[in-house]
């Protein structure tokens, strides 16, 4: 059951597991929803997707799989025992007796299917949908229209398709560009490496507890040091081609501000040279020599560059290549110095990744960073954070 649907979801990159599929099947068997595509959509999402940032993918997968399903003969598609059980549940004893006189449930089901077929055809022909009451033999037995809901399903499906075609969770998809909320979500992952290390600190509470448990015999307990003071140094590229990404950078900056107690930030233009600065309006008067930056902040700072790395190759490779001033040493040398000092580093690039190949300078920076350049999307930030995490544990 639903195996093809399951694989369709996996194809769209959803990490749905077999246990979750089983849950969905169990829910269907318990008749949580019955022959209503929209309700099925919600149930499937409830059981199979556990992260709202994946909802959009689910919508797309659902649309792909169910394109055309609405035209399928539902009466055939629904396993007969589901129908039967549902009908039986809704019939009173009296109804059942009456039913027997009319040839039993099988006959009724057959008639029901025929009717369903007929109505779907009529509907498809463009006539107004004929209500299931009145002329329907089912109505005559007086059972709740719940069972006949199948008859409405054609129209339901058509309406329901819109639910996933709306794709209202698009904003939350990991691949899409960042907005405020999703940015916060992504940066929150940085908290993960806040609690690591070996147990070296005396845990007073636990020691007292353990000692009391042993009726006064001293029992020392140790705990890991809390490393929740993650230190982050951010270098932002400003001006020129970065103007297009001001909004994204603001969002990232705001989110980072909220997230880290130890956040230091400086600006540079296009590539890092001998100076960085902290206030753009005073960029020529109050500069900090990059060498001092290296001396001032320890190796435990994590260095995050934010820039589009889109410039002339000579701006990176040659002395005097800067567009703003005469630089004695090439940008690449300064980059290398920074990276030698801050071994935990990553570069976030707001340029869409598809465009990277068109800029030679991006290749060069990518190489300088030893491949640690990531797009400024939710996924990109997560990857960058994983990289930062990896270099931590390697130490």
């Amino acid at each position, binding site marked *: 059951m639903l195996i093809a649907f399951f694989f369709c979801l996996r194809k769209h990159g959803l990490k749905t597991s077999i246990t979750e599929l089983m849950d969905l099947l169990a829910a269907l068997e318990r008749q949580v929803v019955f022959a209503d595509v929209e309700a099925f959509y919600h149930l499937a999402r*409830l059981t199979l997707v556990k992260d709202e940032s994946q909802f959009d993918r689910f919508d797309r997968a659902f649309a792909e799989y169910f394109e055309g399903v609405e035209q399928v003969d539902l009466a055939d598609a629904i396993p007969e025992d589901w129908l039967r059980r549902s009908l039986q549940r809704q019939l009173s004893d009296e109804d059942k007796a009456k039913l027997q006189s009319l040839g039993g449930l099988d006959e009724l089901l057959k008639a029901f299917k025929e009717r369903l077929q007929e109505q779907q055809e009529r509907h498809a022909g463009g006539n107004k949908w004929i209500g299931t009451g009145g002329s329907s033999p089912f109505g005559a037995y007086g059972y709740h229209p719940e069972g006949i809901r199948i008859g409405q399903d054609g129209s339901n499906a058509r309406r329901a398709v819109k639910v996933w075609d709306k794709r209202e969770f698009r904003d939350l998809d990991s691949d899409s560009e960042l907005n405020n909320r999703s940015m916060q979500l992504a940066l929150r992952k940085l908290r993960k490496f806040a609690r690591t290390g070996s147990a070296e600190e005396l845990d007073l509470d636990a020691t007292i507890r353990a000692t009391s448990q042993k009726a006064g015999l001293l029992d020392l307990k140790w705990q890991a040091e809390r490393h929740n003071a993650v230190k982050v140094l951010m270098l932002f590229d400003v001006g020129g081609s970065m103007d297009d990404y001001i909004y994204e950078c603001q969002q990232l900056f705001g989110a980072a501000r909220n997230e880290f107690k130890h956040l230091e930030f400086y600006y540079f233009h296009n590539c890092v040279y001998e100076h960085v600065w902290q206030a753009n309006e005073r960029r020529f008067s109050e500069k900090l020599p990059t060498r001092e930056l290296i001396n001032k902040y320890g190796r435990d700072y994590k260095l995050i560059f934010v820039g589009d790395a889109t410039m002339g190759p000579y701006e990176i490779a040659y002395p005097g290549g800067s567009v703003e001033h005469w630089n004695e040493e090439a940008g690449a040398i300064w980059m290398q110095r920074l990276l030698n000092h801050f071994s935990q580093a990553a570069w976030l690039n707001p340029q869409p990744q598809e465009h990277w190949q068109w800029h030679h300078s991006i290749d060069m920076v990518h190489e300088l960073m030893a491949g640690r350049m990531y797009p400024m999307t939710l996924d990109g930030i997560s990857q960058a954070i994983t990289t930062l995490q990896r270099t931590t544990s390697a130490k």
Partner: protein
Amino acid sequence: MQFSSTSSYIVADELALAVNAAVTLEKPLLIKGEPGTGKTKLAEELAASLGVPLLRWQIKSTTKAQQGLYEYDAVSRLRDSQLGSDKVHDISNYIKPGKLWQAFTAAERPVLLIDEIDKADIEFPNDLLHELDQMEFHVYETGEQISAKQRPIVIITSNNEKELPDAFLRRCFFHYINFPDADTLSAIVRVHFPDIQKELLQTALEVFFDVRKLPNLKKKPSTSELIDWLKLLLVESISPQQLKESDGLMPMFGALLKNEQDVQLVEKLAFMSRRRGS
């Protein structure tokens, strides 16, 4: 049983479906959504509509999974032993059942609310995997095995501060409460203020959605803020005209905007639109 809107709580169809599915299949239901969209209220209303007790386990950053099971009060045992109390010989005198224990052994199937699970340490959900899956745990001190008489209805809320582990998520159903649309919202308001003037409600909702639409708001006002704001409007008996004609900030803006920068932003925008209008 079918959970649906009550006289004091409006529930969207999808949410009702989610709750019913979770209740039928006895799976924990994880609820996420913007703050103030009624995540916690859901559990309260569910318990009320089923007529069963609600056990609320409020998670804080210091909460440990063990505290939900039971706590062994070793210190008071130590004290009792020094005072020579007889209680000290029975260890079970010092075992304090936690919320999960209470939920497992309750006489009727209760609703267990694990509120704001994301506030706890990142390992917290992992420590509860087995307990929520099998609904049983072992008490080491007494050698007792506590297993659920009947599986409680478990509602878990999260504000997305931390990511929850995959293994935990796989054991839950997941529902994301979307912000309600205008129709649902006015239905919600009418539940809280049955006598509210139609005109006032409409104007207030317009203002409210306008504010929500503003880009770059630090904290978007949500349903609970709207309710608070309307309450103030009613108390101060502000007329729809006053609301419409208010220059700059809306009256009682403090209930809607919780951030200085947001207040400034709204003020600035109102100022600009006024200039454009004149």
